[in-house]
């Protein structure tokens, strides 16, 4: 355990950056559906975005909006009976060649060489992402040896480097431990270490700080940011927490019922939200430092049943700006440079 006082530090602000670097992953009109006895669940229904080198894309939405299935689709780990039914996901590899991830055999050689190697994944619960019966060292060297063909000693060396990178100062001690012997924050650092072991060009982080305490969360977010600065990886950051998104993302995609309702730079999204759902989400959360403790503006009703998504705009059942007929076929339009909204009344409502 670190106990030195000088390790307490105050972070420096980091401004959001424009998405002006090369595209590493181009997701276009992705649709992933689950055919169930009770009907088809369109978990992801037409999602498009790009991951840029050294930039962070935030995906935000409530449970069941399809944000995790989007990530699973990329890696070919969608649980059955889910299937990518259409769309494309083009990965640009280190040598400049491109690879279409849609339609790859989920158990095939190609996707396995991508998964954990070029695209790494961090899960929400570090305890369930790690094997309880193997040491941290075993779990990290396994990944390194599988993907790089390194021998035991080389893998061990790489593992120690990575552990130091994620802020575990005495790697030789951590590597021989089992997950239950580490605290929540250390475990999440170890999981990040395993994800980074093969120098991925893309990191998908699915609610990586949700299970952590707020002070630990701040430290982990800072760690992710500084690792991105040194490695230049593209990050897709999935969370339901708007505060975390504002803290880490450069560009944000808002999802509702499997659809992308808004996409904008982080500054535009928080300062000039256009979709009524985004606006309502931002209004409904209690904010630190708001002096007047008025009633919260709750979004009425609840997320509809995934088997019967409302026709037209999926949000219309809860939207206070709904106008019949006009809201039947909302198109996804660019209302300002880089700011896309799926709402027939975008621009009129605030």
């Amino acid at each position, binding site marked *: 355990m670190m106990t030195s006082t000088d390790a307490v530090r105050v972070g420096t602000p980091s401004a959001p950056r424009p998405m002006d670097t090369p595209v590493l992953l181009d997701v276009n009109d992705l649709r992933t559906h689950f055919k169930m006895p009770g009907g088809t669940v369109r978990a992801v229904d037409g999602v498009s975005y790009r991951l840029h080198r050294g930039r962070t894309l935030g995906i935000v939405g409530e449970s069941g909006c399809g944000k995790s299935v989007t990530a699973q689709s990329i890696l070919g780990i969608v649980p059955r009976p889910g299937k990518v039914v259409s769309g494309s996901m083009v990965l640009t590899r280190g040598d400049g060649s491109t690879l279409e991830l849609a339609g790859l055999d989920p158990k095939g050689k190609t996707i396995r060489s991508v998964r954990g190697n070029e695209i790494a994944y961090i899960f929400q619960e570090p305890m369930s992402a790690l094997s309880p019966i193997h040491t941290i060292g075993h779990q990290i060297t396994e990944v390194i040896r599988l993907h790089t063909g390194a021998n035991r000693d080389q893998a061990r060396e790489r593992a120690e480097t990575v552990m130091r990178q994620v802020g575990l100062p005495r790697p030789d001690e951590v590597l021989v431990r089992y997950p239950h012997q580490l605290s929540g924050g250390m475990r999440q650092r170890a999981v990040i270490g395993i994800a980074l072991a093969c120098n991925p060009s893309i990191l998908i982080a699915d609610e990586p700080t949700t299970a952590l305490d707020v002070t630990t969360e701040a430290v982990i977010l800072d760690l992710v940011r500084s690792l991105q600065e040194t490695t230049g990886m593209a990050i897709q950051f999935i969370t339901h927490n708007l505060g975390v998104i504002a*803290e880490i993302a450069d560009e944000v995609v808002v999802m509702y019922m499997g659809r992308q309702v808004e996409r904008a730079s982080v500054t535009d999204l928080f*300062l000039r939200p256009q979709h009524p759902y985004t606006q309502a*989400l931002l209004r409904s959360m209690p*904010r630190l430092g708001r002096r007047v*403790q008025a009633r919260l503006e709750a*979004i009425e009703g*609840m*997320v509809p049943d995934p088997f019967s998504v409302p026709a037209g705009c999926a949000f219309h059942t809860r939207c206070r700006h709904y106008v019949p007929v006009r809201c039947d076929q909302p198109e996804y339009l660019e209302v300002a440079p880089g700011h896309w909204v799926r709402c027939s009344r975008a621009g009129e409502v605030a």
Partner: protein
Amino acid sequence: MTTNTPVQTGTVPAGAVDGDLLVVRDLVKHFPIRKGFWSKVVGHVRAVDGVSFNVRQGETLGLVGESGCGKTTTSRLVMRAYQPTGGTIHFRDRTQGWLDIPTASATQVRGVRRNLQMIFQDPYSSLNPRMTLLDIIGEPLMVNGVAKGSELQDRVAELLRLVGLHPEYMARYPHAFSGGQRQRVGIARAIALEPQLVVCDEPVSALDVSIQAQTLNLLEDLQARLGLTYIFVAHDLSVVQHVSTRVAVMYVGRIVECAPTEDLFFSPKHPYTEALLSAVPTPDPTRRGSRIFLAGEVPDASNPPPGCHFHPRCRYAADICRTTVPPLTEIAPGHTVACHMSGQLSLTGVHA
């Protein structure tokens, strides 16, 4: 002492002022750590280590802190789910007057339970899947002999309406409801007997953002309508700021700061409160970055550091902090803090 009933059996506890509903003094709960074949006690987890606070009639006291700080243990002690190792918990019962919950007799406790209820964190595991809403919400009414038969159904229907659910749902089972609706069922059950004090243990942390706001509004409405008093245990500081009248911050089994909500958030006096507030991510990208990053981990409650428990992670720590436990002292009206340096520090709160 003013109470709304003529019955006054217990004696007024020391430290109680007019309008207090609960007076907790020097509350201690140690859990033994057992090891080996004979289950020998090898140490103690000091989950709650000398906690004192008052709760006033009609207010909401927020109890915040990180996992393992003892906030849930404290609330369970108030509910007499655990027997404390030491200390007193005086509650001003509607019919029995003041009594000390840990030492009250079984009959007295049965009476107190009606007036002391709890709302749980997880709406999925806290409702019995084999009971209908009528059984779940009606159970406390039936057990306490308040209502039965058609009167019971009427009362449950009224409670369902009160929490915003259709009375026709009465015959359904919990699996038919979403998380937010289930939490409403849990709330209906807790308020069925019109309790005086409701302990809410992370009532919205398992809910989606849009459902959180509905639930918080419902809790506020019920408080206004039924004159409830809440102890609100949570780790989400923005939620706590929104609902609480006063807030107590806990760290490794102790209260480090307690103040009216505005004072605590805008001018914190304890370095831990400052760090905690600074760590909360704000939904404003123009204000990102400058956070206080605490080094290391929350200390192990079975072997906490000597003196002030926070000193190894505190950037203002002096020699005295490493040896002497700082007492909880009042530095402004209603604002108490346990820090040796509090007089010399000017700490940053949240931005308005």
